[in-house]
C-alpha cells in the first residue's frame, strides 16, 4: 500500500455531505471539513448528537461518499472510487469497531476475528490462523477461540470485535462508541487495548464518543458542532511529528 511519506493516514479537504441532493428537502450535514490524521494519532471525535459525527465516521470509513470535497485515505483520493475499489480499500486499510460489537452469530470467536481476511483472501492459511489466535490472546480471550458470540459476555464480544478490526493490520481504526454499553472496568480495559495497538502497530485510532472522560484520555480531541469542526485540541502537530519520527526510527 503506497503511503505518503509524512505517515499521513487520512486527510479531509473541504469535505461536504448533503442528503437528498437535488430535492427540496436537501440538507447539508457537514459544511466543509478539513482534517488530517497521522499514523500515531490517537484521537477522539466528540460532539453533541446531531452534530454529524456518525455521518463523518461513515465517510471516513468509506461506507458513504461525500457530496463535494475530497477524502484521501493513505494518500488516495476516494470520492470517485466505485463500490468495488472502495470496498477493497476499506477491507485492507480500515478496521471497524461498532457500539454493539456486531459479531456474526453463526461463526466462532476466532472465525469472527478472521472474517475480514477470509472475505478478501479466502480460506485462512496457518499464518492467518496464528495471527487471529495471537490477537485473541492480545485481547485476553485466547481460550475462547471456539466459542460462539452468544457464549461470550458483552465485554468479551467487544474485545473479539476489536481483535477482528485489527486482523488486517489496518492503517486506521474507527470506533463508534466502543465502550458505550460496557461497564466502567471493561470500558477501561477496552480503551487500554486501543492504546496498545496504536502504540504497537502504528495504527491511527479515531474514536467517536459522547463520553468526556474517554475523550479526555485521548491525545487529541476533535469537536464537531453542527457539521463544523469547532475545535481541534491539538497536540496534532506534535503528534504528527512524533509519528514521523517514530516511523523514521523503525
Amino acid at each position, binding site marked *: 500500500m503506497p503511503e505518503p511519506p509524512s505517515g499521513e493516514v487520512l486527510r479531509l479537504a473541504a469535505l461536504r455531505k448533503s442528503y437528498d441532493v437535488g430535492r427540496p428537502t436537501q440538507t447539508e450535514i457537514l459544511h466543509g471539513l478539513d482534517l488530517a490524521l497521522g499514523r500515531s494519532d490517537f484521537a477522539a471525535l466528540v460532539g453533541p448528537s446531531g452534530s454529524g459525527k456518525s455521518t463523518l465516521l461513515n465517510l471516513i470509513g468509506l461506507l*458513504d461518499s461525500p457530496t463535494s470535497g475530497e477524502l484521501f485515505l493513505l494518500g488516495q483520493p476516494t470520492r470517485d472510487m466505485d463500490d468495488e475499489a472502495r470496498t477493497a480499500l476499506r477491507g485492507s486499510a480500515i478496521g471497524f469497531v461498532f457500539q454493539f460489537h456486531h459479531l456474526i452469530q453463526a461463526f466462532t470467536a476466532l472465525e469472527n476475528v478472521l472474517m475480514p481476511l477470509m472475505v478478501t483472501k479466502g480460506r485462512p492459511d496457518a499464518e492467518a490462523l496464528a495471527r487471529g489466535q495471537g490477537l485473541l490472546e492480545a485481547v485476553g480471550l485466547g481460550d475462547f477461540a471456539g466459542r460462539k458470540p452468544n457464549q461470550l459476555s458483552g465485554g468479551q464480544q467487544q474485545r473479539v470485535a476489536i481483535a477482528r478490526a485489527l486482523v488486517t493490520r489496518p492503517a486506521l481504526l474507527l470506533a463508534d462508541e466502543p465502550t458505550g454499553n460496557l461497564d466502567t472496568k471493561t470500558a477501561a480495559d477496552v480503551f487500554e487495548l486501543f492504546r496498545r495497538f496504536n502504540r504497537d502497530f502504528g495504527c491511527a485510532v479515531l474514536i467517536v464518543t459522547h463520553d468526556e472522560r474517554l475523550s479526555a484520555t485521548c491525545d487529541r480531541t476533535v469537536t464537531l458542532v453542527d457539521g463544523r469542526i469547532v475545535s481541534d485540541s491539538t497536540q496534532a502537530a506534535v503528534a504528527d511529528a512524533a509519528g514521523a519520527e517514530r516511523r523514521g526510527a523503525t
Partner: protein
Amino acid sequence: MWIETTIALKFLREGRTQTALILIGIAVGVAVIIFITSLITGLQSNIVERTLGTQAHIRIQPPDAINRVLPAPAGTVQLLQEDKRAQRLRSIINWQQVVGTLDQLPQVAAVSPVVSGPAFARNADALLPVSLLGIDPIRYQRIVPLAQYMISGTLRIGAGDAVIGRLLANDLGLTVGDKLRLQTGIGRTALVSIAGIFELGVRELDQRNVYLDLKQTQSLLDLPGGVTVIDVTVREIFAAKSISGRIGALTGLKSESWMQTNAQLLNALTSQSLSTRMISSFVALSVAFGIASVLSISIVQRTREIGILRAMGTRRVQMLQVFLIQGAVLGFFGSAVGALLGYVLAWVFNAFGPGLFYIPVPSALVPAAMGLATITGIVASAVPARRAARLDPVVAIRYA
C-alpha cells in the same frame, strides 16, 4: 467461493427452523412433480401399450391407383370428367427390397411383410366374412406378440394350419383341431385346420383375423410372391409420424403412422402431457416463491450482519453469491429428499393402489428434477440476493 459457501451454509444452519420448513416445502413440491410425472408416464405407456400392442406403428401399402391424365397442350382449356379408380388388391412392388431398406433404418425396431385380403370362412352352414393375414410368424411376432394372446392351442402357422380369433371360433362353433374352409373372392378355396385360438381383446380383430402361412395366403389371394402391407414398429413411438413421412418419401409407397390413424388418442395423450407439465410448472413456481420468501425474510433478519460483512470488505458480488448459494443448496437438498419421497409415493401406489397399471419412476427423472430444482433455487434467490448485495452498509449497521 470458499468463504461465500461457508457463510451460506452457516446462515442456513443457524436458521435451522426456517431451513427445515422450506426444505420440507421443496421436498413436497418435488415429490409431487416426480409422482405425477411418473403416474402420467405410466398411465400413458399403459394406454399406448394396450392400443399399439395389437397394431403396427406404421403401415406401408402400395400407392393408390390413380387416373393418369395427359397434360393439355398450351392454350387449350381442358374439361375433365373423372371416375375414381377402384382399388384392387395389389402387391407392393419390389417388397423384398423395401423390407431390406427398412431393416437398415436405425429408428425402426421391427419390419413384417404381410399379405392380407378378404375371404369367407365356412363351417357347415355358417358363412362369415374374414380377413386373411399371411404372415412370417417370426417377424410378425415382433410387431404383435401373438403368442402372448393365445388362449388355446399353439401359435403354429403353415402347412395348412391357421390361427383364428376367439369370437370367430365361437361364431363358427369351432375349437382347436377342427377344420375350416376358406374361400376368396376369386373363387379359390382352402381347407385349413385350426392350430390355435387367440384373444387380442379388440372385437374387430378377434372376430375377423385369420392368420395363415404367407405362401398359402398369396395363392389364395392370387398374389404369387407378393405382399400387400408392410408393418413396421419404431423404437420411439412418438416419432412414428416423422419416420412414416421419411419412409413414404424414401419408397414412394403409402405410409401411415398410428398417430394418423389414432388421432384422437394422440390428442388425449398430448393434452394429458400438457396438463401434467402445467401442474409441475405451477408447483415449481410456488416452490420458487417459497425459497424467495424465506431468503427475503432471512435477509431482513440479517441486515446488520450483512452490513458488517460489507464494512469488513465483503464485495457486493460476494454478498450476492452467499444468497444464491443458499438458494442452490436449498433446491438441491430439498429435491433430494423430494425424490426419495416421490419414490416412496410411487411405491405405495404400486403396492397398495388400484393396481390397474404399474408406475415406473423413470431413472432420468430424478437427476433432472434435482437439477431443475437447484436452478430454480438459484433463480428464486436472485431477487433477494440482489437486495442483500445492494444493502447500504451504513443503513444496515445503523438502523437494523
